[in-house]
């Protein structure tokens, strides 16, 4: 349940009490259980505050862009520092007052972030400083990062997450030192830890920050994987797609297995973007690996990737996450994450010459089939599961196998139709089954 659900429930309680549906004691219990954190801003407040700060900030940048040629340098430098000073005084007052409305903190955080950027921009304009915009972005995001911790500003945190991802994507050019490359991304991401203190964290991140953080982590870590897998033959840079594809899959497995506390595990999958996006990649990767030529290509990449320190680091992190997931009995995500590790199991059985070996293709096909069947069977034995996802995995597998089979077009067409019909029938069966289960289970009695 998100805060809007809690608010709705709290609004209904007085009416339910009046109607005699709830005893005063039950109403008290519900109010305590579904209390809304008043410090959390409503979406409207946040949007209005952020919009105001954005308009002022972008206005400042536009004023700077005009380039006030007629004023001496000292006056132009005042233009740079006065808005920064103003925003700092505003943020200081917000901090000094302590418990201020969340939207005020957000506005202060965003305004100071933009004023910092505007200040650096005008100084570099006045002195005709060279350099690429990512250098500018790098210093801007670092100087704005502490605002996310100190003002608890979601806007400053989101700005930082977007900025580190954009910076990392830009730094993938071959030959950069590690501190100027996307390999710095994990350290930059760790910089946000004070925004989310404690382990396990005491407060849950909002869904919007989770999504931005996940997308940022995907872009940043995948940029690093791309960077480390580049080859250079002195004059030309080559992309090593078979290497970074596997590194991306390991990254997805790390995301899927990211450790969660009990409350986090109990949340719906939609509130765990790292699981949603990581699983989507891993299923796509696994279905592609069922094709023997793709499987061979990936195996070749794995042989090169395991020599890279970045890959070894990913494997160590993954091993730690696997242990934690086993301790917490997160079998479903473990099954999905294991798809990324299949090439490692295939390696000992792979001949020296990788030409047309079907080992990985078979391994992934069997593993995917096992996952699909397990997801369906678990639901039938009354355990929590995702039977429709299971059916989807099996259907995708059958379609993939048909695509590279030697059956005639007619046979393939008939099989596709059969799979489609079976999928629809299964969907219908599951809907009926769930309706029956709901009608046979008595409604929970209210205390």
């Amino acid at each position, binding site marked *: 349940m998100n805060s809007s659900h809690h608010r709705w429930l709290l609004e209904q309680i007085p009416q339910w009490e009046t109607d005699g549906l709830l005893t005063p004691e039950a109403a008290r219990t519900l109010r305590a259980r579904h209390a809304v954190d008043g410090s959390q801003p409503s979406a409207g407040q946040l949007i209005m505050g952020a919009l105001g700060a954005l308009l002022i900030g972008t206005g400042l*940048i536009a004023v*700077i*862009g*005009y*380039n*006030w*040629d007629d004023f001496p340098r000292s006056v132009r*430098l005042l233009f*740079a*520092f006065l808005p*920064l000073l103003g925003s*700092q005084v505003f*943020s*200081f007052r917000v*901090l*000094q007052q*302590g418990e201020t409305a969340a939207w005020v903190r957000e506005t202060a955080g965003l305004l*100071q972030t933009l004023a*910092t*950027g505007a*200040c*650096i*921009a*005008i*100084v*570099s*304009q*006045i*002195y*005709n*400083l*060279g*350099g690429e*915009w990512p250098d*500018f972005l790098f*210093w801007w995001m670092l*100087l704005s990062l*502490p*605002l996310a*911790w*100190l003002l608890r500003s979601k806007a400053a945190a989101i700005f930082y997450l977007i900025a580190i991802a954009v910076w990392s994507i830009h730094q993938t050019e071959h*030959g*950069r*030192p590690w501190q100027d490359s996307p390999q710095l991304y994990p350290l930059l991401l760790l910089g946000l830890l004070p925004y989310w203190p404690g382990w396990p964290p005491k407060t849950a991140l909002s869904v919007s920050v989770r999504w931005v953080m996940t997308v940022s982590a995907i872009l940043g870590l995948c940029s690093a994987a791309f960077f480390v897998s580049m080859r250079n033959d002195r004059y030309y840079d080559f992309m090593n797609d078979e290497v970074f594809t596997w590194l991306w899959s390991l990254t997805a497995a790390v995301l899927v297995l990211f450790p969660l506390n009990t409350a986090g595990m109990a949340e719906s999958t939609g509130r765990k973007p790292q699981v949603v996006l990581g699983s989507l990649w891993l299923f796509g990767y696994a279905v592609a690996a069922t094709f023997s030529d793709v499987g061979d290509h990936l195996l070749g990449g794995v042989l090169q990737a395991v020599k890279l320190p970045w890959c070894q680091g990913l494997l160590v992190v993954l091993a730690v996450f696997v242990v934690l997931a086993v301790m917490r009995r997160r079998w479903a995500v473990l099954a999905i994450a294991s798809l990324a590790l299949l090439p490692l199991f295939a390696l000992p059985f792979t001949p020296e010459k990788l030409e047309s070996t079907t080992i990985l293709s078979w391994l992934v096909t069997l593993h995917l089939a096992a996952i699909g069947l397990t997801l369906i069977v678990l639901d039938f034995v009354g355990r929590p599961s995702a039977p429709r996802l299971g059916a989807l995995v099996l259907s995708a597998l059958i379609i993939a196998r048909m695509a590279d089979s030697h059956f005639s077009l007619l046979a393939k067409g008939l099989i596709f139709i059969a799979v489609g019909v079976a999928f629809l029938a299964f969907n219908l069966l599951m809907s009926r089954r769930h309706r029956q289960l709901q009608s046979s289970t008595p409604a929970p009695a209210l205390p």
Partner: protein
Amino acid sequence: MKTLPLILFGMVALAQWAAPLMQIWTHERTLTQGTLIKLKCTAPDPYDPLRGRYLAVSPVQREVTVPKDMKLEAGMPVYATLTPDANGLTTLSTVSLTPPAGVTYVRLKTRYVYDYDSKAAIEWPFDRYYINEKLAPEADKWFAENIRLKDGIVAEVRVLNGRAVLEDLSLNGKSFREILKERVSAK
């Protein structure tokens, strides 16, 4: 009221001032104490979304000869000695991996190294000259009219301890900004 967040905030605020102030200090020092050098260059007119209109300044000399005993790789910094020619324009003569003594020099970044002819492509520490957006259209026209002149556009750069700061652009010894202002007011 907690004190620690306020102390931390004070440090952040100081850092937000310190970063641009450091830039100002080093650049002001170069502009006031640095040696003036003149480089022949080209200057097309692109746009920066954050900092407005500028001329992309590109000195004509973009390669240096690498001494045979020097092991140079792409991305490495080099120190190039600046030598004025008979026309008062400056060229890069020798390069070294350490700052040379007793001469005017500039710190450059190596972009590529060409082994076959012992040359290296270099990256200048400045690449843009910001202009007022009112003057920008005139700058476009001026640039198109003057780019093929023999004398060409000259970048006036101040150099101190290897750091270079672009001060002005000029044509036949006259400031680019002054030329543009005269052209705009004459219309």
